[in-house]
């Protein structure tokens, strides 16, 4: 496995040979079986795969929302048990994830309040991150009054304000229109470069993965999903999909995913 990274060699999150089994009244389902993964400090890692490959499950395990059945998850060499202050999850459905009864500013303040950050620091922290995501002028608005892209930027600001090391992003821009999504990509990359965060980004969009990631982990369709391959994307950003190297990588990933896609359709046909 390639563990080198553009900025640092330190590993931040380590997943060792984990298995995840869901038990329900309808039987047991082996979601993940034998997944190992090392995430380096400051890295931008994309987990890419068709739906049903367990990428969201893996992310929930990294966040500490779901326990593993077997294996271990280490964050800074300590086992992950429950949500940790160093990792913040970012959800696709901002409508569910934001606190709709709180204004933009109050949404950001929430994390500072529950983490008992000294009150005197609140205004400067809120200012800093609202400015960073360009919501400074909308601080008294409520989430319902924001556009889809603005809501996602608010989620970013709210997450960054508690200064986590890792941002875990679960198909964050999948429900945005194409233009807004492109804009969000550059916003996210700029913030990532400015803040040295580590990002684990789940997506089923090959182009999105290539435009953003340092490294892409390709996942197979379940049951018993694994990460079949890691691919480094060694091109300067902003990347262009028509760049021959990038296009080549795109085709390679597409051919890697094609059999998985066929399998996921087969699984749907014969349950």
């Amino acid at each position, binding site marked *: 496995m390639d563990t080198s990274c553009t900025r640092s060699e330190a590993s931040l999150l380590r997943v060792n040979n984990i298995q995840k089994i869901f038990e329900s009244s309808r039987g047991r389902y082996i979601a993940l079986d034998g997944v190992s993964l090392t995430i380096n400090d400051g890295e931008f890692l994309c987990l890419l795969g068709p739906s049903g490959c367990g990428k969201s499950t893996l992310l929930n395990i990294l*966040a500490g*929302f779901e326990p593993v059945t077997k294996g271990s998850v280490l964050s800074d060499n300590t086992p992950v048990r*429950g*949500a940790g*202050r160093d*990792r*913040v*999850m970012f*959800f696709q*459905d*901002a*409508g*569910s*994830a*934001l*606190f*709709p*009864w*709180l204004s933009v500013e109050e949404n950001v303040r*929430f*994390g500072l309040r*529950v*983490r008992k950050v000294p009150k005197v620091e609140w205004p400067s922290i809120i200012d800093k991150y609202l400015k960073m995501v360009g919501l400074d002028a909308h601080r*008294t*608005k*409520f*989430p*319902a*009054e*924001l*556009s*889809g892209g603005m*809501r996602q930027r608010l*989620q970013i600001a*709210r*997450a960054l304000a*508690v200064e*986590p090391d890792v941002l875990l992003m679960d198909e964050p821009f999948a*429900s945005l229109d194409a233009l807004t999504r492109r804009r969000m990509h550059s916003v996210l990359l700029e913030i990532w470069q400015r803040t040295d965060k580590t990002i684990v980004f789940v997506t089923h969009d090959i182009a999105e993965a290539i435009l953003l990631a340092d490294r892409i982990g390709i996942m197979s369709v379940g049951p018993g999903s694994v990460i079949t391959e890691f691919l480094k994307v060694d091109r300067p950003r902003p990347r262009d999909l028509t760049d021959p190297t990038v296009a080549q990588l795109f085709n390679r990933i597409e051919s890697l995913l094609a059999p998985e896609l066929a399998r996921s359709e087969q699984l749907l046909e014969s349950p």
Partner: protein
Amino acid sequence: MTNLRESGTTIPGTRSWTGDLFAAIHARIGDGYRRTLLLTAASLLIAFSVWQFLSTFVFNPFLIPPPLEVFRTAIPMIMSGEILADVSISMSRVLVGFIVGSFVGVVAGVLLGRIRLLHDLLDPIIELLRFLSPTAMIPIAVIWFGIGELSKYFLIFWGTLFIVLISTIAGVWRAPIARQRAAECLGANRLQIFVLIVIPSSVPYIVTGMRVAMASSFMSIIPAEILAADSGIGYLLEKSSMLLQTNRIFVALLTICILGFVVDRIFRFFVDRILSRYMSFVSLT
């Protein structure tokens, strides 16, 4: 930024949330509001005219008194304070039962919604008891509490409790899991997630339950007063029926209509004023 709502208002809650049973007339502005007002007036005017015509020329005016006759009967009843006395006694019964029932329903609802064991233990009992309507409970309430105020408070309380309880449990269950997890990531502990996230998320369900319960209270107070009271609108109905005073019956019926409407409007006004930020939506998608 073009997709921002440009209504010029910053009050959240002007957009009615999905599933609102009463996705009715929210703060409308300008022509739309005037149009609604005009149509409402027209609707009432036409209804009264048709009623006046039918009961004058088609039906027996003793059985269905025409509206003008009803108003003529109503005026002295209003002037003498008779109606007001009946309205205030019925209203106080509804309010006491409703407030106590809502309070117990909300408190029990959030606990049962959150504590699985408690819910599983009590749910079978609730699922049986909730089919006992307040009307079904009148005979036993009279034996337990007599025909004084207490039996009426109890009956309204009984009707309110189950409606508010069940909708509160539903609201707690539907607090989005992503929202709770987001709060958890930001550093909230279990109690903070419950108090600061789950309860506010369930407010729309609680308020809907309370509005349904309010309407049901208005429906249950009448039979309760007909069968077991010597005051109130229900008693007025019963007394007028005994004396075959159809005019007075119609005055009482109209009073119930107007009262229910006004109280619901007042309830919504307070919800809009105090809880609007919690009412804006369940999910944005």
